[in-house]
């Protein structure tokens, strides 16, 4: 951003009634990103250095140039590359349509009844006040912001609510970032990144969606990070179907959803199986919430903290998990009816998504698929107060002892089967009886019919949006920061088991 741009934005800051009070929020995002380490897959997320503090960055030129795809830019943005809504453009969509790669769209406080489509690369779409800039679908519009095939688009510091589908939705992109977003009472997902790589979702909040509050799916390797987010009162706090590969979910809170963190496999999306997701340092509690909107699987998975149905080679470490009707951390099979392909063989698990998606489907497709949970590692978690088991595993088509999962150094009270860390330690040879206290996941199916049904997302009782959600720092003056350098690097090894929240 040029200095004139800063001054112009500063003028907006003074003019806005809500802006001044909103800016100057905490800058915890910069505090949580540190240099990467090289201690192995479970310890390091490959990423880039986070940008310097936005305060200093605001005095520098924007670093992003228009892409080659842009012929003779025709933006009507100011020379500073900023389009202010509604001052310069009457609607957000109008601003987006005018913009060229690298532009910054600044949205003044107000309610915008729009469904914004973005097809231009490297835009930064930013509200000047997270709570005061509200995109409202009024239960009629589909997506608050939908980014279709446009690479490097950042959406930040705003609220999306009451959309029939998603609050913010990226699909088919390389480079995406959603920061300081509030997604509230949306009819499918809160914040949804599909078939997209090199992304980051951080400092965001999602509540009241029947599917997942946060979702990253159909990507391998994803090269993505979820950091410092909070999901509550959704069907699922996090869902990630057929995603993984340098995908980390860290430092976040998932509470009072039907189920907490649920990565899974399935042939209803491409790039199966789900694999290699790292889940570290999260607070996961009380995911038994009976009165949320919920898709069927959320009802079925209800009562589990971290659940990996058919998940492969996930790393689940240093999370604090408590108060669940089923398992705190469960590794279970996933039965898929009416699949679209046959199961991949194990030697196909490492095929990148871009290659696998082009492979032909099987000549013969079974009526059902059983995705078993293989090769997961559950280490150093603190798990308590689970009514069935703090740590659990089950296999159906393959005995649990043959699934190569392991558990070590967890603090827990119960497991199914009994003595799970003796049966399958991560650092040695196991022994014992796998049938002793085995997890009875079949019973879950029988219970589905008796569980509380989904509540319409339009009327579900939700907690109010927390009043202390932080604004992004320096929203009015920070330069455009398109998602060309995400995910930011993070030192996974330094993350500790989080303390219980006060109260």
């Amino acid at each position, binding site marked *: 951003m040029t200095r004139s741009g800063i001054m112009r934005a500063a003028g907006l800051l003074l003019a806005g009634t809500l802006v001044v009070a909103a800016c100057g929020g905490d800058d915890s995002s910069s505090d949580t990103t540190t240099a990467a380490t090289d201690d192995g897959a479970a310890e390091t997320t490959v990423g880039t250095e986070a940008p310097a503090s936005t305060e200093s960055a605001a005095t520098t030129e924007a670093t992003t140039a228009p892409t080659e795809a842009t012929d003779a830019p025709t933006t009507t943005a100011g020379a500073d590359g900023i389009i202010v809504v509604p001052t310069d453009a009457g609607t957000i969509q109008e601003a987006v349509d005018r913009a060229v790669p690298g532009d910054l769209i600044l949205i003044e406080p107000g309610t915008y009844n729009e469904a914004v489509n973005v097809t231009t690369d490297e835009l930064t779409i930013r509200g000047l006040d997270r709570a005061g800039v509200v995109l409202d679908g009024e239960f009629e519009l589909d997506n608050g912001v939908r980014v279709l095939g446009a690479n490097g688009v950042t959406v930040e510091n705003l609220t999306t609510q009451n959309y029939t589908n998603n609050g913010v939705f990226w699909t*088919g992109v390389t480079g995406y970032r959603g920061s300081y977003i509030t997604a509230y009472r949306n009819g499918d997902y809160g914040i949804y990144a599909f078939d997209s790589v090199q992304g980051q979702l951080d400092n965001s909040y999602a509540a009241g969606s029947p599917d997942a509050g946060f979702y990253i799916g159909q990507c391998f390797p994803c090269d993505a990070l979820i950091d410092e987010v909070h999901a509550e009162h959704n069907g699922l706090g996090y869902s990630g*179907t057929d995603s993984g590969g340098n995908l980390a979910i860290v430092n976040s809170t998932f509470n009072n959803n039907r189920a907490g963190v649920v990565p899974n496999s399935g042939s209803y999306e491409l790039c199966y199986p789900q694999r290699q997701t790292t889940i570290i340092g999260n607070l996961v509690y009380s995911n038994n919430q009976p009165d949320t909107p919920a*898709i069927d699987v959320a009802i*079925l998975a209800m009562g589990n903290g971290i659940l990996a149905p058919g998940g492969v080679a996930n790393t689940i470490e240093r999370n604090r998990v408590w108060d669940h009707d089923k398992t705190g951390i469960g590794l279970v099979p996933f039965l898929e009816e009416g699949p*679209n392909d046959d199961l991949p063989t194990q030697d196909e698990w490492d095929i990148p998504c871009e290659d696998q998606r082009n492979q032909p489907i099987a000549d013969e497709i079974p009526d059902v698929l059983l995705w078993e949970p293989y090769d997961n590692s559950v280490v150093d978690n603190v798990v308590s107060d689970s009514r069935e088991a703090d740590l659990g595993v089950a296999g159906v088509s393959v005995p649990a002892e043959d699934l190569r999962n392991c558990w070590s150094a967890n603090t827990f009270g119960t497991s199914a089967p009994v003595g799970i860390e003796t049966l399958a330690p991560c650092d040695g040879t196991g022994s014992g009886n796998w049938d002793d206290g085995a997890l009875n*996941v079949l019973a879950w*199916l029988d219970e589905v019919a008796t569980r509380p049904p989904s509540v319409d997302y339009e009327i579900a009782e939700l907690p109010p949006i927390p009043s202390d959600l932080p604004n992004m720092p320096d929203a009015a003056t920070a330069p455009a920061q398109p998602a060309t350098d995400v995910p930011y690097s993070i030192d996974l090894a330094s993350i500790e088991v989080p303390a219980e929240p006060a109260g």
Partner: protein
Amino acid sequence: MRAPILVAAAAVVAVSSCGADGPDGTTAAQLDAAAPLVSAVLGQAPPTTPPTVPSTPAPPSTVGDDVSSEEPVDEPVDEPQAFAPNGETVEVRALDNTFRPETVQIEAGTEVLWINGGRNEHNVIPVNDDETWGVDLDGFQPGDEYTFVFDTPGTYRYYCTIHATKDAGMIGAVDVVAPAS
């Protein structure tokens, strides 16, 4: 994640989900909804303006006609040739959120069968607004099917309005060629 089911062969029948109506479980109501579209197509002219139907060269002026070549000639325009149904069916699966395969090439007269194999709702909408085939959300919920016989050569592009624009995201195309013989 949409409506998968965790586990167990013994309980397959007992468990329902939004995807429980598999390809063979399409309801009568859903078929009824699609039927008018299918029957209408089978018995009528091709889509009004297929987006990229190869244009038929205009016939040359008739030598010796009295009509000046500089005046408009009110000659009949060749309509793209339509072909009778050939009984063949090609399948496209609507996953979340991809059509697989994205492009199919068929001979005119072939039926395309779309199956919503995803857990999300989708639709199949022609890019060309003038075309009248396709199926909306209500008729294409998870497990639903939709068929259409393409009887006229051309390229028919389509998309899911929820998960795509006309040229990005969940898009597809049916490339229809004239039968070989």
